[in-house]
């Protein structure tokens, strides 16, 4: 790595720190800190989600897979469609309208506080361990490019991330992830462009690829570490469900959208439009490397190094630094969401219910900031542990594999099956985890679920991918048996906690009968009034917007590219005044950072 590349990487760090810190002024309450005031547009959330999905290892891992297997490397990123409608119509309305702030909080409402405690402990262990792994991976990756110290590079990354997350919260996370998402997609496409240019165009690239590299899927049952059936159950079902239904960072991102409709649009764009672009971006290095090698331009000695090798081969000084910055962006955008999510769980599921239940919001905001710093610090402390004891790294991977299917099953059965009880949930978590742990020592139990896939290793390394199907099946059995044997119906009220109660949920969210009549946004001039929480429209404008006093409306700056950064939710208090003008309380204007001199877009919400 040359001096120019190092300057580009350093400039990236400075830019992200400055960019993230700039948005700290938008986090003045815990609602802002964790959910950005629920004000963002769908495209902002969608783009920022992309960088959260792509981890630091994605470029390295998928380039290697793409080099070895070709286009089938995209399988992992192209199988989110299966669970998408269930998320959009089943899970998302529940989390959006029930005003829950964390997954354990949902578990508490659905099953009671004991189950919440188990879920909180498991999630915190998983997230803190994962933050540490991300820092460790990044330290190793940067140290390979700029030799200094694995811990030193991990510390630099941790410091930059911790600073902007601790001060800026969710607004900073979303905005920096937006920039980083664009950066990492761009990096992959730059590699494609440079590779195609060197090979002599798309046709030359296509014919330089081995025929086996041109298929969309890998063989169904081989090899053991890349069999399509294994990817289907591990990535397509278990991991996708864990990410969409269980990942606190992902859920918080979608609780930051301004409306349910925007949430649906965002997840649609993420899963079906942006993920294919990301799949191409992270795999591009491998495809280009395979074609370049076949065409005799260069050779790869170790597939694990294919991404760095091909990037170094194709990029000029400066551009190489840009791609490395994208690699760092992939890490930071994943870990910042994890830090914010860990802080949310700590504040909402540990501090607020057990330590200080009645403090004011300023207190919780301070705790949230400290928790973000603590999560980063704890993750950093794990770096030497991971570096010194590789078995701990493996143990965390095994722990994740063991808890993911049971937790996913608890959430899915929890909102899909009314009768599913707290006893069933505990049975699922304990029984499912133990069953999976047992499979690490006696992997033969997975064989009936393996579809004929070979073990591919011993003990914990056997049936790496097919363990997910076994785990899901075991968890399902434990959950069902536990619920049926328990006999009793759930004691807690299930209103709004299971599918099929959307209208009731909206009614509870609004506190009145929802206004679901069709409406189109209108643009109005603003008249500031010194009455707290006051919003009034003229009779003509209220008719155009199809709203009545008591309805929820959304006031937004007309500059679409702000993505809702300058906006506020409000309740229509009165229908009076001059047509073409909306009267808005000063407190609402201040909260939404709305400029009274500019016209605003008024949208009916509920």
């Amino acid at each position, binding site marked *: 790595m040359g001096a120019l590349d190092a300057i580009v990487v350093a400039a990236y760090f400075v830019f992200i720190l400055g960019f993230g810190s700039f948005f700290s002024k938008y986090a003045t309450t815990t609602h802002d800190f964790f959910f950005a005031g629920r004000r963002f547009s769908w495209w902002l959330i969608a783009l920022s989600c992309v960088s959260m999905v792509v981890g630091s290892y994605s470029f390295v891992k998928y380039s290697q897979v793409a080099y070895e297997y070709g*286009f089938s490397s995209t399988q992992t990123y192209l199988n989110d*469609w299966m669970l998408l*409608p*269930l998320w959009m*119509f089943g899970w998302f309305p529940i989390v959006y309208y029930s005003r829950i702030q964390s997954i354990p909080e949902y578990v508490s409402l659905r099953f009671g506080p004991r189950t919440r405690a188990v879920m909180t402990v498991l999630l915190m262990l998983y997230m803190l361990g994962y933050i540490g792994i991300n820092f460790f991976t990044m330290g190793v990756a940067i140290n390979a490019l700029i030799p200094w110290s694995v811990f030193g590079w991990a510390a630099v990354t941790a410091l930059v991330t911790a600073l902007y997350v601790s001060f800026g919260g969710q607004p900073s996370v979303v905005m920096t992830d937006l920039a980083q998402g664009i950066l990492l997609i761009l990096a992959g496409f730059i590699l494609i462009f440079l590779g195609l240019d060197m090979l002599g165009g798309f046709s030359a690239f296509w014919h330089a690829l081995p025929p086996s590299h041109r298929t969309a899927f890998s063989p169904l049952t081989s090899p053991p570490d890349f069999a399509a059936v294994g990817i289907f159950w591990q990535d397509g079902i278990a991991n996708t469900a864990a990410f969409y239904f269980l990942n606190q960072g992902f859920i918080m991102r979608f609780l930051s959208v301004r409306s349910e409709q925007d949430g649906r649009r965002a997840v649609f764009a993420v899963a079906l439009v942006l993920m294919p672009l990301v799949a191409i971006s992270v795999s591009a290095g491998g495809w280009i490397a395979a074609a370049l090698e076949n065409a005799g331009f260069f050779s790869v000695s170790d597939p694990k190094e294919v991404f760095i090798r091909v990037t170094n081969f194709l990029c000029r000084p400066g551009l190489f630094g840009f791609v490395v910055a994208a690699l760092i962006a992939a890490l930071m955008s994943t870990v910042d969401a994890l830090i914010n999510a860990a802080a949310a769980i700590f504040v909402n599921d540990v501090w607020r219910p057990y330590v200080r239940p009645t403090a004011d919001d300023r207190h919780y905001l301070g705790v949230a900031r400290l928790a973000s710093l603590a999560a980063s610090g704890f993750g950093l402390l794990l770096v030497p542990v991971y570096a010194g004891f590789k078995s701990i790294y493996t143990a965390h991977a095994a722990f994740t594999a063991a808890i993911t299917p049971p937790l996913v099953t608890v959430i899915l059965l929890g909102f899909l099956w009314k009768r599913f009880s707290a006893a069933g949930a505990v049975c699922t978590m304990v029984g499912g985890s133990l069953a999976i742990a047992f499979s690490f020592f006696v992997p033969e139990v997975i064989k009936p679920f393996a579809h004929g896939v070979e073990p591919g290793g011993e003990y914990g390394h056997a049936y790496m991918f097919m363990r997910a199907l076994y785990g899901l099946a075991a968890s399902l059995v434990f959950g069902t048996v536990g619920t049926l044997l328990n006999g009793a119906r759930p004691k807690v009220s299930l209103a709004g906690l299971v599918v099929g109660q959307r209208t009731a949920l909206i009614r509870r969210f609004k506190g009145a009968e929802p206004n679901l009549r069709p409406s189109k946004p209108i643009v109005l001039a603003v008249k500031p009034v010194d009455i707290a929480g006051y919003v009034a429209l003229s009779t003509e404008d209220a008719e155009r917007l199809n709203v009545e006093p008591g309805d929820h409306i959304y006031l937004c700056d007309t500059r679409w590219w702000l993505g809702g950064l300058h906006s506020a939710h409000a309740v229509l208090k009165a229908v009076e005044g001059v047509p073409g003008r909306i009267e808005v309380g000063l407190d609402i204007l201040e909260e939404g950072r709305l400029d009274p001199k500019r016209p605003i877009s008024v949208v009916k919400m509920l």
Partner: protein
Amino acid sequence: MDKSSAFLAHFHDDDLAPAGFASRAFRNAACEFWRKSLFYRYCRIAEDWYLGHLWLRPQKIRGYLRPITYCASSVLMVQYLRPLLRRRAMTESQTSFFYQYLVGLAFFVPGLLLGHRVGAWSFKEGERGPLVLLLVVFLCYLFAQAFLEFLGPLI
């Protein structure tokens, strides 16, 4: 009869046999054969179980889910017929394509039906756009991957 009722009716027991291509006697015989087949019985047992025990009200959407049961069950058949498929020149990765889309539909379609049931994207209110878009993009995925899978190695 609205569209959803018509769709439901299409899957009522008496209409299981394909219509319009043969005489009534042939259709009845085919229908009888179909009902006595082990595959049909297996599907009905599975269907009764999950419709009866999970969140769905059987009477309303039993008809919608029946084809999905058959699709999921077909996966098992794909498993057992794989050696035969290989002899019929279907590659292992092409089998993966069918596996992904057949089993995947078992997760995908109930979600769509759920959306329809909760009225999120009702057919009745003329809000077909998003639902149609979802299906169109899904079909794009299916066709793009099928194209790559079946024609990619040949081009």
